[in-house]
């Protein structure tokens, strides 16, 4: 007698699990413009690569010892491949009791985190639930209250230092669910169908008297275009999966491996003529820094993160000769590129990401300094700026700066680690100092200007005299800047550098002493 009857039962139980929360709930999920959790897993992973874990978990109803109905657990977990590399994926099933934690079975989510940690695989969370704290119904069910503890949090936090973690917000996500999205290296949300908040509208109305819709409280306009809690906004779940795949393509599976190289068809010696004139000769004119980045890195390789947060700073991942690199750039279109509190936070977090995963950094510098004014002071710019500087100095990943134009003040000085090699190339448009001449002359030469019979004229004379000394070639004469290059040579030089940088990475692998925080 074989075990065939049990194998048949296994098959029929797996079939029940695939039905999720039943036809009606599945239809409602789809009508809301969302995929089911299984549809999401299929949309994310390489076809046929999903290996599910714990599909049998659920709540069975028995009559006379025979299973008559089955509600699967509201969390689908497994491993699968993205571009041929294995990842752990866990997703809430909203069709089963709204994915509420009080309807969960066992600690599937925690098991998934542990799996990612011990197998050193990237973790992807597809969050579409009401959180983990459960509801007050738990109280009735358990007949006692409990002191809250964040489940598996030690592992969740450790993951950030060891493997790439992605948080996708794919529905209305509150409390623990929201924290699970945000405790990641890269997070995104879908415009219109996902919202994220500490607590939803009913609780907010009771607690602070605000009457708001879900979208007003925590839609993508709030978090992906303002608060910075979520990195990217996407138009659809399909775009979310594309972005997750793209983000992971730049990173190793864990910190013990080097970032993966891809074949690149783009000529490392490619010279783009437009680079010769992209920086306006008029110092006060802005330019499109994204266009500049696009002309230098491998064609179409730039993947921007957090575009609408901390806008004076542009960050993203890209490739040079197929090697992943982290790109930082100041955007003169926003506050003239002046680093504000939000931009500083974005910079700190991105440097930590690159350093953690050994992704060499290219910093395109046009930095007028920290943002000034009362609003900037109130925002604590100097505190967040100091943290960004600390991140620059703590990073041990290979780093190169391309000085495009301005390097002013403390923020400018933070373009690299000045006590280390601080490898850099300056363009002929380079313009630097501790204070810009225009603002500084009046203060520094006040007595001389005021005692002159024609103070205005004296001020202009001093300015002209100083402007002549401003040439970057004079700095190069003093070896105050090591190289001035033809901007069209930038790609060639960076491609030369990236080979050397990756030559170093092999001896730097492993976790950094500085842990990574969300």
């Amino acid at each position, binding site marked *: 007698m074989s075990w065939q009857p049990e194998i048949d039962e296994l098959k029929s139980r797996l079939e029940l699990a695939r039905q999720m929360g039943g036809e009606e709930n599945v239809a409602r999920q789809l009508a809301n413009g969302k995929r089911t959790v299984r549809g999401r897993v299929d949309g994310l992973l390489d076809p046929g690569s999903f290996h599910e874990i714990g599909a049998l978990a659920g709540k069975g109803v028995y009559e006379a010892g025979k299973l008559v109905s089955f509600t699967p657990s509201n969390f689908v977990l497994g491993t699968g491949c993205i571009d041929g590399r294995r990842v752990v994926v866990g997703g809430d099933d909203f069709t089963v009791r709204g994915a509420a934690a009080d309807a969960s079975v066992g600690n599937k989510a925690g098991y998934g985190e542990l799996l990612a940690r011990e197998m050193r695989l990237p973790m992807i969370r597809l969050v579409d639930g009401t959180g983990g704290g459960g509801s007050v119904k738990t109280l009735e069910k358990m007949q006692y209250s409990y002191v809250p503890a964040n489940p598996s949090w030690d592992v969740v936090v450790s993951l950030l230092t060891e493997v790439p973690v992605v948080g996708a917000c794919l529905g209305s996500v509150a409390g623990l669910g929201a924290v699970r999205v945000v405790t990641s290296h890269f997070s995104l949300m879908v415009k219109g169908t996902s919202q994220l908040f500490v607590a939803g509208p009913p609780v907010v109305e009771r607690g602070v008297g605000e009457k708001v819709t879900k979208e007003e409280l925590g839609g993508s306009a709030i978090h992906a275009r303002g608060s910075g809690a979520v990195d990217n906004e996407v138009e659809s779940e399909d775009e979310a999966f594309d972005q997750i795949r793209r983000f992971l393509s730049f990173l190793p599976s864990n910190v013990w491996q080097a970032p993966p190289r891809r074949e690149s068809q783009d000529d490392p010696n490619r010279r783009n003529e437009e680079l010769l004139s992209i920086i306006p000769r008029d110092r006060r004119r*802005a330019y499109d820094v994204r266009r500049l980045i696009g002309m230098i890195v491998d064609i179409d390789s730039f993947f921007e993160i957090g575009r609408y947060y901390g806008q004076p700073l542009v960050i993203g991942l890209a490739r040079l000769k197929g090697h992943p690199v982290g790109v930082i750039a100041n955007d*003169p*279109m926003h506050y003239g*590129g*002046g680093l504000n509190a939000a931009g500083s936070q974005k910079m700190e977090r991105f440097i930590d990401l690159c350093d953690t995963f050994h992704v060499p950094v290219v910093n395109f510098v046009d930095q*007028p*300094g920290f*943002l*000034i004014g009362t609003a900037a002071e109130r925002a604590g710019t100097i505190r967040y700026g100091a943290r960004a500087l600390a991140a620059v100095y703590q990073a041990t990943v290979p780093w190169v700066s391309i000085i495009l134009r301005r390097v002013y003040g403390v923020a400018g000085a933070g373009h690299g680690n000045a006590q280390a090699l601080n490898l850099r190339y300056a363009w002929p448009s380079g313009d630097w100092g501790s204070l810009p001449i*225009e603002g500084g002359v009046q203060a520094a030469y006040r007595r001389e200007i005021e005692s002159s019979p024609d103070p205005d004229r004296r001020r202009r004379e001093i300015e002209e005299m100083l402007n002549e000394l401003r040439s970057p070639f004079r700095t190069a004469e003093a070896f105050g800047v090591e190289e001035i290059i033809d901007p069209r040579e930038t790609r060639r030089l960076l491609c030369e550098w990236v080979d050397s940088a990756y030559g170093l990475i092999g001896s730097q692998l492993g976790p950094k002493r500085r842990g990574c925080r969300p």
Partner: protein
Amino acid sequence: MSTTIKSPSVGSIAAILVENGASVSPGDELLVLEVMKMQIPIVAPLAGQITAIRVEVQALVQEGDVLLTIG
């Protein structure tokens, strides 16, 4: 249906390059905002006619302030 053009950041208006009633095409420079000594061109996102200019040269603006409208 008119479109409002808002200031992307705090700053002052360095120049206004269009007049009320002017026809504009996407990408045309409408005005120039100055912040941190940097002049930032504000361009038309779409074709249309300028129906109102809400700022003057040298005016200080906050992020989100309406600069002009295109009808």
